[in-house]
């Protein structure tokens, strides 16, 4: 019976074990399914942000193409053209003596009450560190010192070569950072983790210091300060956002004007020049290339080394070509404009000529855009002919007509001139704007409108030709802060964490020692994410992405409604999911998985059908005070508000943040021409009246744009996150008593939102 007992015991034990194993498998199966669904949500959230970003980029390209088109086709004296022509004109202050005068800061007095840093030049390490500390404490550097700092920076940058050359000798590890985009928190975090730049701690910063984030100027000042203190150990590359025309749209211009009300305009003008003097690339140990965007199949470092980089002030404004026999041809820009033969196509907004197919100027890239800058006949003809050869996108009929018109009318030019200008420009565009792709080849980057997409074969060829082993670039946001591609020969490095939203991504920096093996450090700036689990992070980010998406749906309400009604011929007010998804795809042109997103965007369906009128009611706009402007007009203005704001800032020539009624009117007329839709005088008057709160005959741009904010009435918006006190307040507390408050919020948050709740909800949904 002992044997029997042993057998029974063994049997039960075995059974129990078996049961446990089965239970484990079950739980694992269940959890993996849950995790997969979270992953999908994270993924499409990411897709949403990226496609919005790209759509916005394309908007900008379209706008500049449109403006360029205006330049081409309107009389030089027309008001509309004058409003915008200044951004296409060469920066008028170009000679050294004038620049020194422009930088003049001596007559700016600093009041005693100013408690920020008072810099003395030459700067030293203590002052640089003090500057960092001051910015950490939310202080602002006085404009006198800003100007002085910029002057010294400019003097230094002018003597730097296009290609920074760095060495890891003396066992120095070099730290490399990617995009910062005005996120001071991230820079501070990097310094905290890695130490500040010094003789023992060299740094390379890979561009895109400004725009989007709110502390762009502070980041620039810090980087410039360290550059001045350690010129042999701090290297700055230029990014595509170090460009004053881009800054008009993406926030840097606005930031500087708001922070420096008196001298902001001057500061911006100086930065315009300084950006153009930033070096283009950095090479470490002649083995590793660091560049902001990337390369193309024609990238040639020898050529890059030779260009006059400062002539390329903006990607959207190629430099005028210099030909030996034409040194004075740019002096008189008015007469110069008339040399363009466009007489058959001239017009103005008051006597509009047909624009031709919208596609003719919208599919043009930054490259094509160079053709709109005023030129001599011969150059114009030459450029267009050359472009027709290498451009992939087809030229409009009108351009071909223009070329042939030119060829028949023009006199043969005796002077020679080379392709160099255009080639150099393309080289620089490629360096600053390109993105890698996974298949072989090299194609124009139509999404960004400049640079190209380059494949692994191009990387291989490039590295071999230049005897390099690795390309480190930035320019694209990555979930984990960095990502390899092209067989680990290309590394994308992004240092702005939480770029799309709190919790959306980590930032990273990399250290390279003499062995040139990258060592990565990842981080996430806001302590709000501390203690948030992966599901929490996903949900937060998703929430924001969906909000943004709902905005898009709102602004296309009218078009969507028409699309739905076309399908719902019997006018039942109901539409099935499939049709809903197809209609949205057609109207929005956003490449997103609508059927996957459906449960997040639609709160309820009856019998699998959606009541679309009710659905629209959930999307609402907080109206500007005027109730008389009809829905479609509001929608349109809202949809194009970035474009509108950009035009405003262009029109605001003195960068004061205010524009006159008349200019405001003109701006709206410009917009209506761009959109090819009527914005009547009544509407314009209505808008003017409703926004002029100053009552002084001028309109504050910021105030006007404030009116366009979406109020979300959707039921999908559940309860605000607890951790949404004003970021500023939170951060300043944070810097004082870091850990304690961190824990405080951690437990406070957890008490309110038990982790298990999310799992519970998941179970309910099954």
């Amino acid at each position, binding site marked *: 019976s002992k044997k029997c007992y042993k057998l029974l015991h063994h049997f039960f034990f075995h059974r129990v074990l078996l049961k446990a194993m089965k239970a484990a*498998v079950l739980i*694992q199966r*269940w959890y993996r399914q849950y995790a997969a669904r979270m992953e*999908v949500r994270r993924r499409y959230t990411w897709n949403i942000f990226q496609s919005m970003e790209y759509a916005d980029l394309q908007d900008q390209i379209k706008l500049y193409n449109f403006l360029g088109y205006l330049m081409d086709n309107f009389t030089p004296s027309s008001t509309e053209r004058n409003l915008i022509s200044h951004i296409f004109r060469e920066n008028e202050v170009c000679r050294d003596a004038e620049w020194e005068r422009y930088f003049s800061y001596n007559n700016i007095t600093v009041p005693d009450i100013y408690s920020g840093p008072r810099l003395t030049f030459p700067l030293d390490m203590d002052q640089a560190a003090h500057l960092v500390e001051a910015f950490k404490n939310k202080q602002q550097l006085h404009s006198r010192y800003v100007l002085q700092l910029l002057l010294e920076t400019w003097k230094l940058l002018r003597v730097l070569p296009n290609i920074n050359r760095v060495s890891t000798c003396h066992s120095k590890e070099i730290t490399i950072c990617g995009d910062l985009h005005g996120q001071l928190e991230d820079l501070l975090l990097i310094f905290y983790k890695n130490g500040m730049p010094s003789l023992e701690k060299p740094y390379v910063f890979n561009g895109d210091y400004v725009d989007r984030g709110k502390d762009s100027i502070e980041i620039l000042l810090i980087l410039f300060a360290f550059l001045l203190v350690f010129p042999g150990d701090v290297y700055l590359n230029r990014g595509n956002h170090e460009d004053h025309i881009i800054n008009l749209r993406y926030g840097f211009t606005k930031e500087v004007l708001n922070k420096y009300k008196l001298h902001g305009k001057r500061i911006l003008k100086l930065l315009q020049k300084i950006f153009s003097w930033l070096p283009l690339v950095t090479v470490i140990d002649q083995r590793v290339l660091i560049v902001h965007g990337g390369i193309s199949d024609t990238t040639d470092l020898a050529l890059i080394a030779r260009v006059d980089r400062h002539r390329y002030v903006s990607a959207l404004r190629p430099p005028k070509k210099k030909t030996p026999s034409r040194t004075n041809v740019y002096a008189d820009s008015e007469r110069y404009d008339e040399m363009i033969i466009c007489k058959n196509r001239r017009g103005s907004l008051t006597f509009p000529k047909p624009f031709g197919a919208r596609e003719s100027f919208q599919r043009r890239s930054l490259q094509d855009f160079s053709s709109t800058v005023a030129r001599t006949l011969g150059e114009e003809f030459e450029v267009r002919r050359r472009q027709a050869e290498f451009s992939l996108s087809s030229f409009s009929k009108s351009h071909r007509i223009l070329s042939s018109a030119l060829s028949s009318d023009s006199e043969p030019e005796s002077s020679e001139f080379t392709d160099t200008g255009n080639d150099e420009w393309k080289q620089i565009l490629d360096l600053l704007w390109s993105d890698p792709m996974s298949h072989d080849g090299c194609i124009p980057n139509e999404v960004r409108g400049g640079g190209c997409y380059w494949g692994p074969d191009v990387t291989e060829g490039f590295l071999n030709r230049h005897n390099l082993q690795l390309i480190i670039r930035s320019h694209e946001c990555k979930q984990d802060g960095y990502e390899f591609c092209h067989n680990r020969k290309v590394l994308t490095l992004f240092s702005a964490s939480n770029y799309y939203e709190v919790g959306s991504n980590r930032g990273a920096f990399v250290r390279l020692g003499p062995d040139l093996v990258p060592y990565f450090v990842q981080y996430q700036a806001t302590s709000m994410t501390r203690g948030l689990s992966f599901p929490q992070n996903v949900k937060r980010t998703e929430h924001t992405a969906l909000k943004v998406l709902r905005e898009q749906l709102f602004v296309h309400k009218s078009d969507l409604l028409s699309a739905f009604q076309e399908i719902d011929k019997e006018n039942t007010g109901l539409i099935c999911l499939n049709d809903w998804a197809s209609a949205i795809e057609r109207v929005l042109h956003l490449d997103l998985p609508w059927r996957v997103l459906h449960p997040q965007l639609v709160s309820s369906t009856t019998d699998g059908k959606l009541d679309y009128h009710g659905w629209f009611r959930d999307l609402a706009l907080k109206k500007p005070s005027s109730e008389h402007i009809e829905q479609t007009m509001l929608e349109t203005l809202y949809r194009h508000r970035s474009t509108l704001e950009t035009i405003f800032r262009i029109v605001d020539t003195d960068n004061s943040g205010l524009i006159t009624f008349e200019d405001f009117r003109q701006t709206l007329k410009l917009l209506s021409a761009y959109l090819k839709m009527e914005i009547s005088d009544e509407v314009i008057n209505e808008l003017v009246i409703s926004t002029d709160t100053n009552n002084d005959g001028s309109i504050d741009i910021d105030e006007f744009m404030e009116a366009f904010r979406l109020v979300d009435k959707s039921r999908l918006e559940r309860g605000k996150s607890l951790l949404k006190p004003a970021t500023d307040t939170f951060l300043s507390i944070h810097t004082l008593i870091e850990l304690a408050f961190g824990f405080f919020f951690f437990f406070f948050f957890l008490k309110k939102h038990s982790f298990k709740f999310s799992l519970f909800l998941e179970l309910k949904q099954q």
Partner: protein
Amino acid sequence: MADKYSADTIITETQKRISNAFDVFDHESNKTVDVREIGTIIRSLGCFPSEADLHDIIAELEEEEPTGFVRYEKFLPTMTKILLERKFRPITEDLLLQAFEVLDQQKKGHLEPEELTKYLTQEGEPFTQEEMDEMLSAAVDPDKNVILYKDFFH
């Protein structure tokens, strides 16, 4: 005839769902996904395969010479069949509760993190450390530092 229509509709709807789910992971927009994401895609469509099940499916989907990628043309028919045949059905709440109760040998009504970790990283189809950490961060009650599994269910 009505039946045929609805059958076709179901297939079309199903295939559209599959296409959408696939697209989320098709980063290059060239109708291929990394083979390592197949499990996620299948699960996102509502299925609960085990790792072993996935292994078999992937073997079916891979090319003669494994490229590391799965093409949509191969994925669609396989996945359609899985969905239409309702394979890998969801786990019922009762079963899941029982599973937790089995692991809770001492019938405490809750599980210690170490207990759960031991089972899930050693038994069945073991979790990676990362999977375990993630699950714990979502499942552990922060006050008591245990997994109150009963609260997952009503």
